[in-house]
């Protein structure tokens, strides 16, 4: 019998390797495939298209004789899968990640072959026509970026793939790199063909050892197919800010990952000062489909408004049915969390949802009718970011989460610009003071020598909150990049929707025990 088990990092972290070995020991052929993306069912064992999960070693015999209670039926017909519109993840669960044979058999390299026939102008034209926007968070039209690099004149150009997926609540890049590495490589090669670059770099974070190993293996196997295009994987070194494109370029060059001021745009002066396309994993992985026959028009036909195509949405945190859900733009948060995600895993009511990673706003259940669309989210002072959704139940302390947002910014700030470097630390202190009920004047301030210090009773909570609001304003408009610029989103949204988590119940704003531990 052929047994299929994912070798995705998540399945492996839950013991998939041992289960695969147990099946192999019983004399069955085990194929390691990519993950279907139904994470609550991992490790998911597939026998003749039927699934069993979450499997443990104790389930092996029952799965083999068909008596297992963990049967979920035909995987492809599962409502979680059947309801999706999978383009970028169309091979998820269906192929062996580094098998060239599987990749070819599922339409692999067709986009690259066609791209080579139609030439650079036509490629850029099709990417423009598809409406593809950068999936890293900013949503900038990919075709415009490509055109800028194509038109630049330089002896050397680069394609850089941003695989520094540091946002908590996101894992689509990781799943794609581990599950369908050739799709990403094909996307890079097409981008190279379009703009006239022969060298690509994939900058992957060091927290993803499995993804790096798979990419290296895939690159070794497909070297001759993508030639004369060359590609290399570079490993990050634990800096969150390197997910910002200019900081990433500095890191690739072997420098401190500090943000660069723009302009000049990386499209004109990027890696080593050369014209460079910097695109997210999901952006590049969507390209092979777009470049296949009729792909661009099909892509443009999906989605809503100016948000075209599909978005691989990641359901994470305290959610019953977490995993990867790729759907056309326009789906509501309520559908995603309550219908598809099945509510919280703890069974308690949903309190808050953070969309777009650590820099995304916390949304209140009252806002759940918001539709997944770049412009809709901007209007609600929120962001889609990389499409990660983290669910919190009613035990969450949103004041603590706001503090954590500032603390995270302080830990990960590159230090280049003041609002982010200093503002984040001041933000932590301010939130601590708000939660402690305000601020008393200290002894030094009260000494007669301190002529300019006020001798009043200090600042109350309201005044501290006004200060925090002002600080957030400064960070939002004064920071160089999204780290300092977007940290105010989680902070202010938490303050707006759950003020009681900052000030305590109205009648007794007593001092709380503060978490002063350093993470």
């Amino acid at each position, binding site marked *: 019998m052929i047994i299929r088990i994912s070798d995705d*990092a*998540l399945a*492996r*972290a*839950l013991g998939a390797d041992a289960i695969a070995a147990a099946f192999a020991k019983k004399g069955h052929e085990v194929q390691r495939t990519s993950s279907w993306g139904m*994470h*609550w069912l*991992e490790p998911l064992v597939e026998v003749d298209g039927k699934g069993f999960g979450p499997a443990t070693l104790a389930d092996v015999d029952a799965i083999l004789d068909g008596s297992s209670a963990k049967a979920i039926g035909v995987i492809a017909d599962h409502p979680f899968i059947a309801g999706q519109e999978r383009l970028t993840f169309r091979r998820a669960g269906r192929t062996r990640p580094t098998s060239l044979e599987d990749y070819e058999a599922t339409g692999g390299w067709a986009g690259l072959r066609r791209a080579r026939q139609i030439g650079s102008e036509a490629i850029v034209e099709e990417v423009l026509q598809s409406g593809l926007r950068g999936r890293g968070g900013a949503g900038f039209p990919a075709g415009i970026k490509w055109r800028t690099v194509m038109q630049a004149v330089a002896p050397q150009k680069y394609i850089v793939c941003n695989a520094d997926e*540091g*946002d*908590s*609540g*996101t*894992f689509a*890049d*990781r799943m794609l790199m581990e599950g369908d590495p050739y799709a990403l490589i094909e996307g890079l090669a097409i981008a190279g063909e379009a703009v006239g670059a022969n060298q690509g770099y994939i900058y992957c974070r*060091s*927290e*993803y*050892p*499995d993804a790096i190993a798979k990419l290296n293996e895939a690159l070794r196997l497909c070297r001759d197919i993508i030639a004369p295009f060359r590609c*290399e994987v*570079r*490993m*990050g*070194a*634990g*800096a*969150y800010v390197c997910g910002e494109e200019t900081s990433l370029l500095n*890191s*690739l*060059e*072997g*420098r*401190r*990952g*500090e943000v660069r001021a723009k302009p000049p745009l990386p499209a004109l002066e990027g890696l*080593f000062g050369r014209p460079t396309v910097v695109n997210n994993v999901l952006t590049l992985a969507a390209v092979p489909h777009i470049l296949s026959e009729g792909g661009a028009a099909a892509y443009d036909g999906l989605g809503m408004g100016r948000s075209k195509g599909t978005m691989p949405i*990641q*359901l*994470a*945190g*305290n*959610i019953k049915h*977490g995993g990867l859900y790729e759907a056309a733009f326009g789906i509501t948060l309520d559908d995603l969390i309550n219908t598809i995600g099945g509510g919280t*895993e703890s069974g308690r009511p949903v309190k808050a949802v*953070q969309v777009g*990673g*650590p820099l995304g706003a916390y949304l209140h259940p009252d806002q759940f009718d918001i539709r997944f669309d770049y412009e809709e989210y901007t209007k609600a002072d929120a962001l889609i970011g990389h499409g990660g959704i*983290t*669910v919190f*139940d009613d035990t*969450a302390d949103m004041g603590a*989460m706001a503090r*954590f947002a500032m603390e*995270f910014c302080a*830990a*990960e700030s*590159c230090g280049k610009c003041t609002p982010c470097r200093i503002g984040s630390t001041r933000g932590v202190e301010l939130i601590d003071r708000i939660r402690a009920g305000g601020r008393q004047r200290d002894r030094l301030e009260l000494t007669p020598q301190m002529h300019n210090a006020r001798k009043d009773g200090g600042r109350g909570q309201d005044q501290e909150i006004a200060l925090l609001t002002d600080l957030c304003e400064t960070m939002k408009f004064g920071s160089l990049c999204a780290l300092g610029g977007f940290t105010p989103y989680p902070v202010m949204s938490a303050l707006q929707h759950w003020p009681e988590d900052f000030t305590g119940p109205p009648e007794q704003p007593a001092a709380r025990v503060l978490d002063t531990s350093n*993470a």
Partner: protein
Amino acid sequence: MGSKEQKIGEIIADHKTQEGAMLPILHDIQAEFGCVDADSELIVAEALNLSRAEVHGVVSFYHDFHPTADNRPVVQICRAESCKARGVESLMAQAQALAGDRVKLSTVYCLGLCSAGPNARVGDTLHARLDAAGLAQVIENAR
């Protein structure tokens, strides 16, 4: 010192043809010696025609590089939003007590297994869906 210098020389030679070879070199040194110390910085600086200050600036910027070696086993625990939502913070006190001085607990922000937290990493092995007992086992087994 002699053999260390030689080893670093070999590492640098391995990456000679790469553009922007600094990070790959530092990763290899960190993996080999458990740290990138002042001596290593000097050798790298000389080989890449940089000042030691420039190399130190890079080493001190990234969380993955350490100035001194710590021979204890390391358990990285994710304490980012998704793992917080799944209760990692309530496991930390017990984990710290169990780790004691034998195991180094370090915080990592996201291992990309956000639908199945709390998560931890030891070497290149990942652990997901940890509860108090699971995390205790990970810490006890860390070598």
